[in-house]
């Protein structure tokens, strides 16, 4: 019977079956969910977002938050915390990553070995393990605030986290140094152990991947370019800055962007060490309200929006800067 139909009709038939199958499965799961929610007396919908959260958030630097505020505001604080740690990690991982990538190509044997050891080590250990490790280092081996380490003027490392100076945003510009008083630091900003561990772990881990991308990008620049630049009498530094890096950049930007995206997604591991990011607060919300479907929908929606926004930016960049007939 089916044999007599032509290919087009057969394709249409398959797709109708597929659609019917998906709809049927969807209907089955939704019906089950409705039953279960009724049995557990959980009202579905996003109304819970406006109810009082009733929990405190350890870190809400960008937006003040109290237990009387709504779940919506709690999730917003979480999202801001995600951005805070992810953006900082992205900036530092770029700097370290470029340095590592260049170091791997340096003529100095020690430097090359050091950089490749760094990359191999960091890439082959799960990020969660690294986060637990940094958290343990901070909370177990650093001294109490009174005996805080002072590696740089104005920077204090203790088991309560990292105290750093801040620059006041009001005029006149002044630097506010942290100082130990009583039982803790005042002045500057104290970054909690959770934040410090997450930031450090994310930045170092992402840097290993970025280092590899930078290295591959530079290696991919045609040899002729080096030779031509050398014959023009450019110094090694000029050659790198004017000829190689601009060309490598075109190859490096797309994969590095996807590393940035990974870095933002990886910041969700905050929940493992107790930093209140979006996922961690959504998790608390789910546990308190039982609104599992809505909570997970919020997480996925936020991350999908970020992913799509960054991919859209990326496509625009590629259209502008790709070589004629270019790849990637």
């Amino acid at each position: 019977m089916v044999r007599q139909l032509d290919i087009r009709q057969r394709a249409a038939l398959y797709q109708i079956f597929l659609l019917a199958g998906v709809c049927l499965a969807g209907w089955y799961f939704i019906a089950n969910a409705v039953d279960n929610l009724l049995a557990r007396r959980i009202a579905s919908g996003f109304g819970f977002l406006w109810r009082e959260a009733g929990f405190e958030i350890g870190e809400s630097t960008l937006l003040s938050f109290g237990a009387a505020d709504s779940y919506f505001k709690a999730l917003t604080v979480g999202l801001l915390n995600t951005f805070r740690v992810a953006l900082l990690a992205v900036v530092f991982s770029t700097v370290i990553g470029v340095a590592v990538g260049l170091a791997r190509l340096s003529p100095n044997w020690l430097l090359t070995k050091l950089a490749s050891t760094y990359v191999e080590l960091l890439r082959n250990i799960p990020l969660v393990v690294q986060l637990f490790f940094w958290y343990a280092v901070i909370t177990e081996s650093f001294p109490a605030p009174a005996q805080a380490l002072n590696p740089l003027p104005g920077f204090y490392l203790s088991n309560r986290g990292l105290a750093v100076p801040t620059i006041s945003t009001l005029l006149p510009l002044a630097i506010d140094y942290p100082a130990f008083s009583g039982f803790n630091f005042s002045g500057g900003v104290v970054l909690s152990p959770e934040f410090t561990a997450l930031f450090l772990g994310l930045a170092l881990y992402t840097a290993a991947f970025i280092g590899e991308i930078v290295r591959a990008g530079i290696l991919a620049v045609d040899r002729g370019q080096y030779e031509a630049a050398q014959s023009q009498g450019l110094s090694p530094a000029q050659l790198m800055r004017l000829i190689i890096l601009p060309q490598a950049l075109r190859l490096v930007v797309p994969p590095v962007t996807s590393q940035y995206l990974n870095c933002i997604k990886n910041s969700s591991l905050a929940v493992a060490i107790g930093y209140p990011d979006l996922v961690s607060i959504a998790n608390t919300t789910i546990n308190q309200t039982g609104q599992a479907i809505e909570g997970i929908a919020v997480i996925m929606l936020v991350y999908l929006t970020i992913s799509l926004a960054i991919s859209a930016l990326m496509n625009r960049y590629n259209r502008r800067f790709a070589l004629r007939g270019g790849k990637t």
Partner: protein
Amino acid sequence: MNLTNGRGASGCQWARSRLFGSWPSSLATLAIVYLAARWLPPLLNWALLRAVWSPDRAAACRDSQGACWAFVADKFRFILFATFPADQHWRPALVIAILLALYGVSGFQLVRRLRLLCLWLGGLALIGLLMWGGIFGLTYVENERWGGLTLTLLLSTFGIALAFPLSILLALGRRSEMPLLRWFSIGYIELIRGVPLISVLFMASVMLPLFLPQGVSIDKLLRAQLAMTLFAAAYLAEVIRGGLQAIPPQQEEAALATGLSYWQRVCYVTLPQALRVAIPPLVNTFIGFFKDTSLVVIIGLFDFLTTIKVSLNEPAWSGFGIEAYLFSALGYFAFCYPMSRYSQALERQTAHGTGLSALREN
């Protein structure tokens, strides 16, 4: 600048070119040597010389200035097998051995294709038998008691094995000419790749039970395995699609002209070639997936990492987190590093292993 370590060159010449080639290079060498001299001795002192090794000396760890490896020695069995009944530990131990043997056989390409597939299917069936038991005089052991390194290996191996067929279908679906099928595949792949794994794991652990009929429940381990499988499938699908795209279109056209049907074309012409191209990135995906299994610590499954973390809760061993996580890092590294070297070697072998392909994988 690009002097190589020629065979005839003496050590002195080598040092001059590779360590003191220029002023900045000399400075870097001196800085590295200085830092190593300053930091390595105390580190070695802590990690080896003053370390406590013997498991019955928990108290000694408190007084010692060195690392407390006694923790690992004491918890070794728990870290490998978790709460599997103690008198049955040979079973998960055998499972680990079988898995390692299977990896070895596949990695060194000792047997080819069909035989390898049979070997894997047989091996996985045997592993299921050993873990669950219940027949041939083996006592039944429920899923809840599986754990440790065994669980990490099982989660990653079964995850990839189950995700593989699904990912092939998704990759084919994404390249299909049927719009609906293509949209579903794209939607699935991009949805999964756009969200963090932890949200998929949460979905499996707290949301999935809501979608099952009342009275039906799947245990936590299988739910996590399902989530990891669905997650891996999206990433594998993209790797396989990359492989499919690398095949010249003439192959497909020639197969079409020969009169082969769609599935014949896929099974005999395009897929075998695509998979061969895709092996190095597939290994890389597997490494990533192996590392990702550690995330089950967040939903409370007793894998390699969780057993170590939980051991720290014992009063005798609390406060030795640095040693514990260094050991777990070493454990994961011991698996991931050889695999990454393997995939790098494969990349060099294939003609496609240029600098550009290394870029594309990330």
